[in-house]
């Protein structure tokens, strides 16, 4: 028996409106107990639908959801003992903060499990956990967005579920608050040892918080792995360009050995990589070049050559847009601001970090 949640070939087709596209199209995933797993993808790729099927709000068209090896596909929402944190908070407006948090402890099915004193203690404890101890008596409309999200978090955690589901919980918060809440969520996950399944379209958020990320596109999981795997070894061109804004240049494998690769660009220049070979010589590939894996040098001092097409001062670094010679492609390079700047139109060479550059399917 495996503990945790397993999705087996999960599919969803919304009926009505002549819908013909699968909202979720064959998702397979294993989420171990205590993991922080993020579903990441652009808007409309089926993240919410997947999460809502796990929660029981939507019935899968086909496929199975297993919980600790037991099929829960048809289990009613209220029996699932997974708590959801909604993007719009979904706080009950007719109740105070404390009453909202106590709601899950006071349902009929919980009757007799906790005394009033215990409920009060648990509510107070969880309001403290999210730093809202002094707001217990307020109504939801008297709280800020960040505070509402904390209440919704406390309400989900107070019943001590094994699994907590999040649907873009920070989506409506401003950038600063989002950072604060990210750190808060990571802390809670570390302290509570619960499974967190998290939906977001923000790749920075996904990278920073998750044990594993499922990158989704049009209802499918494109890659499922640790943030490092996803970032350093994207399995496809789609994942590479979605995560970390990589630039991909067309190339052909010149030489493939067990300990590395040589690829040739359209302009004849050659780059060597430390990536173990999974591609054959002569195969067309995409060479993924990230800004932080490149550095500029004077002509002749690097593998690739080009011309500075643009430079943007970003404060932390200068971002150069470099057009490779022979129209081989466009790459971005981040350079420290204290180095002498390269002028617009200047011919430059590029040094490539062989450990980090990576090829994906053409």
């Amino acid at each position, binding site marked *: 028996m495996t503990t945790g949640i397993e999705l087996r070939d999960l599919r969803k087709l919304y009926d009505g409106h002549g819908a013909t596209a699968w909202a979720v199209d064959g998702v397979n995933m294993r989420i171990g107990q205590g993991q922080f797993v993020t579903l990441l993808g652009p808007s409309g790729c089926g993240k919410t639908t997947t999460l809502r099927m796990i929660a029981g*709000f939507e019935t899968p068209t086909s496929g199975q959801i297993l919980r600790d090896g037991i099929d829960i596909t048809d289990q009613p*929402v*209220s029996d699932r003992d997974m708590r959801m944190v909604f993007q719009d908070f979904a706080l*009950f407006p007719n109740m105070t903060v404390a009453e909202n948090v106590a709601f899950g402890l006071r*349902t009929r*099915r919980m009757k007799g499990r906790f005394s009033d004193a215990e409920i009060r203690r648990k509510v107070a404890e969880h309001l403290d956990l999210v730093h809202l101890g002094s707001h217990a008596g307020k*109504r939801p409309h008297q709280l800020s967005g960040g505070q509402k999200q904390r209440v919704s978090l406390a309400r989900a955690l107070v019943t001590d579920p094994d699994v907590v589901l999040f649907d873009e919980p920070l989506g409506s918060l401003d950038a600063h608050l989002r950072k604060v809440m990210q750190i808060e969520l990571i802390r809670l996950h570390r302290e509570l040892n619960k499974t967190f399944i998290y939906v977001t379209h923000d790749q920075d958020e996904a990278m920073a918080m998750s044990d594993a990320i499922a990158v989704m596109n049009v209802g499918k999981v494109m890659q499922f792995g640790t943030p490092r795997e996803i970032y350093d070894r994207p399995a496809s061109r789609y994942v590479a360009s979605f995560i970390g804004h990589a630039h991909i240049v067309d190339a052909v494998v010149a030489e493939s050995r067990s300990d590395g690769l040589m690829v040739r660009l359209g302009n004849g220049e050659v780059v060597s990589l430390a990536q173990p070979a999974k591609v054959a010589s002569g195969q067309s590939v995409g060479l993924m070049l990230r800004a932080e894996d490149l550095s500029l040098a004077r002509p002749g001092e690097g593998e690739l050559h080009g011309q500075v097409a643009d430079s943007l001062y970003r404060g932390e670094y200068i971002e150069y847009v470099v057009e490779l010679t022979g129209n081989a492609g466009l790459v971005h390079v981040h350079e420290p601001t204290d180095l002498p700047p390269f002028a617009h139109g200047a011919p430059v060479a590029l040094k490539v970090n062989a450990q980090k550059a990576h090829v994906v399917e053409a």
Partner: protein
Amino acid sequence: MAQAALSLPSQTGGARPAVRSARRIERRRMLLWLVPPIAWFTVFMLVPYALLFYYSLGQAEDMVFTPGLSLRNFARVFTDEPYLGVILKSARIGLMTSVLSAIMAYPLAFCLAFHVRSASLKFVLYLLVIVPWWASYLVKAYAWKTILGTGGILNATLQGLGLTHEPVRLFLYNEFSVVLTLTYIFTPFAVLSIYAQLERVPTSLIEAARNLGASAWEIVFRIVLPISVPGVIAGGIITFSLAFGDFVAPVLVGGPDSLMISNIVINLLGVAFDWPMAAAIGLVIIALGLALISLSGWLEEKTQVRL
């Protein structure tokens, strides 16, 4: 340069009176815009109320109106038979109608708001609620006569089933049939008012409650009902007012003793020619109505939750 500098003062000097006169014209034009509403208000509100008040202070002697300055008629509303009693009875019928309407309307509005997912089905059901209003009030009231009467559908069914052997007379010409008819006719108002409030409840609240393990009953009684109280009150006030002031149902399906206050007023006006008494009753009812609306407005405000 010099020319421009020279021309500046004269320009501003010239502009100021121009602005002022433009403002004056503007204000005059504004007054013009205000004439229609003020005229409407005077002709249709102030004058009738003033007339009503003028009549209520006078006397009717031998069916002829004599002006006066006496508050006697107002006292008679509360002391003479049957006025106060009928007002109270009308209020009772109004209250029963509004409560029954709310009970009838709530489940329908609830279904419409939460269970009907398809937009077109929602529209059709919504239309079905409103459509009876295209039929005449009289037709609808008469319909109940044919259902509840001694030779009516209900009695025929009961006899056909062998449950009764002779027509039951209890169904028609009493307060029960009046309340039933009024409830039938005015329930749509309650539906629309409650539905409007329920529509504001985000579905995520209901999903959150289900997710926290709440049963359907708990969702209704702890979340939906508390949030929808203002809609119920608003609908209740509308149905109460309509039922309270009704004069057709008591005549068509009511018994000899189920006349309501509007029937009394009509009799005073058209049969007894006691216009002063009718005016006094009218004013008392208007005052009661204002009090009721203020109270309900306050209650609605008080029970409204900020979503």
